[in-house]
């Protein structure tokens, strides 16, 4: 009887020490995977800062190529974000609230630019709005040229960045309890008043973070822009294009531009986290 109990107890001890060993091994494995992954992400970013002195960084900030790219990027990304918000908000609201025939097709089409390679987006835009494009040939009759202008930069950015806003906005609208909208209607609010005073304010955090993400995507746009808008300093050469161009001659300028984009990215992530009230 005692012997059986002894065996059982040693079995329990052996079993628990085995589990403890397993847990330690698992923790170490996860820690190692995490460290490798974090290093892989941070090392290249840190390298940017290590490869340039502060003096060189500030000196290159006054170079025209950088100033032109910075101002063009900020302007075009802002304009394209505004366009995305103006067109995307009603679309997201309708798709979140109304079930109509073809809604799934509209959803798929609005998501398309996320999976489409930017180079494909670039050539597609060129085929539509280029001088001999499907629409461009008629615009050409009125003397309107879009390809290889600043307008083309904005169009390319709107094309690639819009899904980031529309998806987020739709999810935020869906998360608003319909009960508030029903209550507002019984109190005398028209559908438009319901949208502006109830649904949009309640979805505000999601809309802002969607707009910020869309802005960030527009700022980083490269492939579609270089194909559809070209690479002309001051007109179509945005920051990513300027990095690509200056890298071949003036590495300091390229690194400086990259550092500015990294800093903007950090601000974007922080802003999204603050707006969506998540802790770091």
């Amino acid at each position, binding site marked *: 009887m005692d012997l059986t109990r002894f065996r059982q107890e040693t079995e329990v001890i052996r079993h628990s020490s085995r589990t403890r060993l397993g847990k330690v091994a698992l923790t170490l494995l996860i820690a190692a995977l995490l460290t490798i992954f974090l290093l892989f992400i941070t090392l290249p970013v840190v390298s940017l800062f290590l490869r340039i002195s502060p003096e060189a960084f500030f000196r290159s900030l006054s170079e025209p190529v950088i100033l032109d790219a910075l101002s063009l990027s900020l302007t075009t990304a802002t304009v394209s974000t505004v366009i995305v918000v103006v067109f995307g908000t009603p679309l997201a609201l309708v798709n979140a609230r109304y079930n109509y025939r073809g809604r799934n097709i509209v959803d798929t089409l609005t998501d398309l630019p996320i999976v489409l390679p930017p180079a494909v987006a670039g050539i597609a835009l060129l085929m539509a709005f280029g001088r001999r494009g499907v629409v461009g040939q008629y615009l050409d009759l009125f003397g309107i040229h879009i390809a290889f202008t600043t307008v083309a930069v904005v169009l390319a950015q709107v094309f690639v960045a819009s899904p980031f806003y529309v998806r987020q906005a739709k999810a935020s609208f869906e998360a608003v*309890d319909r*009960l*508030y909208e*029903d*209550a*507002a*209607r*019984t*109190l*005398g*609010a*028209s559908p438009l*008043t319901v949208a502006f*005073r*109830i649904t949009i*304010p*309640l979805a505000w955090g999601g809309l802002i973070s969607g707009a910020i993400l869309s802005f960030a995507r527009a700022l980083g746009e490269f492939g579609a822009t270089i194909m559809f808008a070209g690479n002309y300093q001051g007109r179509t050469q945005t920051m990513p294009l300027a990095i690509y161009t200056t890298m071949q001659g003036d590495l300091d300028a390229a690194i400086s531009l990259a550092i500015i984009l990294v800093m903007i990215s950090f601000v974007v992530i922080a802003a999204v986290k603050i707006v969506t009230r998540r802790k770091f």
Partner: protein
Amino acid sequence: MLSFHVVRQLRDFVLDVALSVEEGETLVLIGENGAGKSTVLNLISGILAPDRGEITLGDRILFSDRREIDVPTENRNIGHLFQSYALFPHMTVAENVAFGLQCRKVPKSEIAKSVAEQLAAMNLSDLADVNVGRLSGGQRQRVALARALVLEPELLLLDEPLAAVDMRAKGAMRKELRDQIWNAGIPCIVVTHTLRDVLELADRLCLLEEGKVMAYGAPEEVLGMQENGFIASFTEG
């Protein structure tokens, strides 16, 4: 006076209810969960549309499939209190109460006056600038009622008005609610699961089962139908 006959295909059965409520009269709806009580309120206030039927309030036809009339929810002037009260979480108490008046384009000075009066009448003046997220169940109920009554509705629909009020405050809140309904002097429909609500609020009582009126009449008359399983358990509890 409200009179209505509404028919709507629900998931499991056809809801078919015809009732009327006089001015100053309170009709209480009881029945199992899913019997269609809240749906009746939603059909009357216009949140849902009946497949067929007619709803008239005073001399206005709010809905009639035959005459192709369907007055939008926002133009029905019906005070509808939801079970969870649906107070707008991004607004203060005063902003919630002012909302309906702003929708009606009432001048700002009048809005401020009406809101202040309504809040004072319901002992809510101290909470005017408080965000509704910080209110107790009883306070939320009073704000929801104030938000509806400030618009001087022609009909009140109350969906389990005391469900979210804590037990201790329930008795006092029920009396307060009865007085508010009495003062409003308009037809009122209350959905409830509580016998005390029936005893204190009901002028008329209606039992719904699977979307049909199973019993209708004076409360003591309906509650006396002990052969009905629901009534038997309802009066026991």
